[in-house]
């Protein structure tokens, strides 16, 4: 037989590739012993650990095995008031008056200590939140350190960011952060606030308080003046008390759109400023001329990164019809190589769902998708008995009007739709109340510019997805919120800017 070109083939006989290989990876667990978690945490107010006035504590668990990791204090209204007063006092007496370069030194010091304690922070993040150790080690912790480094640099250069303007800090910032990137979101909130001369009361999410509390001990080690950053823990009521406190000048919130709306109602008519970073339902758009295998990676990273608990997750995939079949085959092959399981294993790609509540939400949406008539595909994988798990899930034959296309699921569930023309996909991609992010995959430069101009989303990635940099602003359109975090843009929400 001379050349392939003369061979007869029977397409029906081509078998799918087999990824259930004889050669398997042995477990490679990171050691939990390398991290120190206290059995109980109080509230970090005025530079000291304090018992909560509420007298109450709640358990924080490891979502991968449901074991209790620690007991955490519940801050009530009085505790919130103590924290805000400490922040006000520190602002008036110390932080506002400090030379900007000195403030920068503290922020640099925090960044360096985060780097020194990177391994421990990564372990705690993974134990408390369920995300794979590879992600907390390679993404969450280094990116958090980078954010502090970046804003430390701005502290004494604000007049270059806003030339010819008079700048004043706002005062006390109340900051409420979500459970998907606990340490990183704390960094996103605290670093720009400190660099611009504000003081902070931060409330982490109730399921993932541990790295924020570890950060409190880092702030102590950095010798940050008492009260400049206060960290209080608790659930929704604690957050509400912080939002409603009359002496808070600014609310920065990252979380769900429904809570964002409550916050906006609550502060309406006050002179509190706010930035809200809310939900999303990003479109990831693959054109027929795209580098398909790299697009597959981007799609996988877009929806399965951090179990899909990402506000900018690429949860709607739009495939140009001519490549849809091939692309879905590639995607199915790819997800059968994803390793789901123990988040502490260095080889794990998809860890545990953050909480039972969130797992129930995801499972409910999977049922909805099935009822709506979409075809479901999940790779064969064995899940641990204890803990909260959801395999990577693809839905094909999905319609634009399906709820799984329209509503944020916040889990590893991808809705796959098709399109024919550029205009059609722009209309469909924008056909959502959200507008946080989008992705465009094409080999054609001019198409990228056309798409980025017309997509109504705060971030549009071209031939990549879920890329973050402290120097790049991040934030939403429409119900995905307002205000920008990161970059030079991230300074202005913490400044009073007068000409």
């Amino acid at each position, binding site marked *: 037989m001379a050349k392939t070109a003369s061979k007869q083939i029977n397409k029906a006989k081509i078998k799918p590739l087999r990824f259930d*290989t*004889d050669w398997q990876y042995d477990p490679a667990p990171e050691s939990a012993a390398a991290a120190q978690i206290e059995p109980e945490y109080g509230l970090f107010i005025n530079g000291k650990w304090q018992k909560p006035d509420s007298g109450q504590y709640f358990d924080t668990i490891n979502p991968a095995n449901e074991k209790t990791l620690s007991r955490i204090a519940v801050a009530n209204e009085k505790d919130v008031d103590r924290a805000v007063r400490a922040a006000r006092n520190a602002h008036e007496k110390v932080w506002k008056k400090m030379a900007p370069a000195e403030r920068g030194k503290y922020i640099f010091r925090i960044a360096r200590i985060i780097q020194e304690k990177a391994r421990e922070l990564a372990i705690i993040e993974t134990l408390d939140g369920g995300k794979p150790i590879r992600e907390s080690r390679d993404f969450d912790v280094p990116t958090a350190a980078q954010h502090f480094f970046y804003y430390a640099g701005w502290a004494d250069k604000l007049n270059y960011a806003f030339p010819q303007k008079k700048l004043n800090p706002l005062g006390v910032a109340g900051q409420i952060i979500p459970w998907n990137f606990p340490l990183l979101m704390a960094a996103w909130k605290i670093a720009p606030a400190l660099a611009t001369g504000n003081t902070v009361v931060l409330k982490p999410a109730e399921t993932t308080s541990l790295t924020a509390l570890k950060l409190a001990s880092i702030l102590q080690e950095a010798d940050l003046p008492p009260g400049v950053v206060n960290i209080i823990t608790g659930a929704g009521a604690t957050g509400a008390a912080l939002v409603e406190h009359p002496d808070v000048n600014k609310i920065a919130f990252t979380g769900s759109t429904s809570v964002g709306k409550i916050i906006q109602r609550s502060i309406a008519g006050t002179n509190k400023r706010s930035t809200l970073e809310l939900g999303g339902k990003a479109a990831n758009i693959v054109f027929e001329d795209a*580098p398909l295998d*790299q697009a597959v990676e981007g799609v996988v990273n877009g929806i399965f990164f951090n179990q899909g608990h990402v506000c900018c997750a690429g949860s709607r995939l739009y495939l140009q019809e001519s490549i849809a079949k091939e692309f879905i*085959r590639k995607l199915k092959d790819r997800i059968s190589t994803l390793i789901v399981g123990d988040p502490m294993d260095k080889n794990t790609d998809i860890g545990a769902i953050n909480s039972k509540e969130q797992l129930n939400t995801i499972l409910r949406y999977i049922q909805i998708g099935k009822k709506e008539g979409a075809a479901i595909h999940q790779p064969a994988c064995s899940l641990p008995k204890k803990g909260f798990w959801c395999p990577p899930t693809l839905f094909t034959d999905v319609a634009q009007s399906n709820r799984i296309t329209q509503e944020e699921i916040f889990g590893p569930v991808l809705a796959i739709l098709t399109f024919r023309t550029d205009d059609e996909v722009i209309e469909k991609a924008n056909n959502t109340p959200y507008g946080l992010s989008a992705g465009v995959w094409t080999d054609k430069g001019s198409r990228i510019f056309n798409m980025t101009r017309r997509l109504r989303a705060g971030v549009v990635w071209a*031939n990549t997805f879920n890329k973050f940099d402290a120097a790049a602003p991040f934030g939403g359109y429409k119900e995905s919120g307002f205000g920008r975090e990161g970059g030079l843009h991230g300074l202005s929400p913490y400044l009073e800017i007068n000409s």
Partner: protein
Amino acid sequence: MAGNSTTVIPPDFRRTAPVDQTGIEERAARFTKRSIKQSSKRQALNMVLNMIDLTTLEGKDTDQKVRQLCYKAMHPHDELPNIPTVAAICVYPNFVRVAKKALDGSGIKVASVATAFPSGQSTRAIKLADTRFAVSEGADEVDMVISRGKFHAGEYNFVFDEIAAIKEACGQARLKVILETGELGSLDKVRRASEIAMYAGADFIKTSTGKIQPAATMPVTLVMLEAIRDFYYKTGIQVGMKPAGGISKSKLALHYLVMLRETLGQDWMSNEWFRFGASSLANDVLMQIRKETTGQYQSAAYFSVD
């Protein structure tokens, strides 16, 4: 005739699938994050050893040198029981007969470079004669080089026809087509050359001669593995992969195995479909196998160089 049965028609090679370099590099880096421990490491080291094409391609090669290499191929390290042999030895055509005799009955293949290796700058007639000579001397496998000049000039039909002609001259011998990716300049061109080679009849595609830097890299190999996968799904034909040059440490070889496992899967995980073209890799693998067996590293002085 069944409706599914069709003839393989070569595509327009000017329009091969685009490759995004940044994306490929990111994906390749991800494979290096897999942690290979304990029994999976031992299994992998044995697999790597068994996939090596032990190579000598020097102007100063002699019969005696080739015989020594053949003995090493059959007896990598006699102190270690139950270790596999390498897959093949790879030599110039004029040493094929010597190697064939030395390896008789061992099951180890003899691969011969041909076609005016390594530059490929010669006439078709000479390349065909070179190939026929290697095969008549007993080569089980032929490693040819493509005409990179013609490829860069856009003469894809010339490159295709040349590979097809060499394939014909190979007869029963399996043909590995060396793209010399270090001279191709972009991953798009690596992808294009891979497709030309496969459609023209390559049994294996191979990165490099080992004479040009850079030789094999993980991104380049990934592009070729993905081309192999797409070709398989289009035609049902399985094509092998051989990264060659620059892989001298076990750890790197394990990263390649991870990449192979997660790109092509089970059916490619043997030396029938995957090879490492290397000379110094074998001893590093042996050193690691010994360490896994006894718990201690042994000095390089205990491992024969040839």
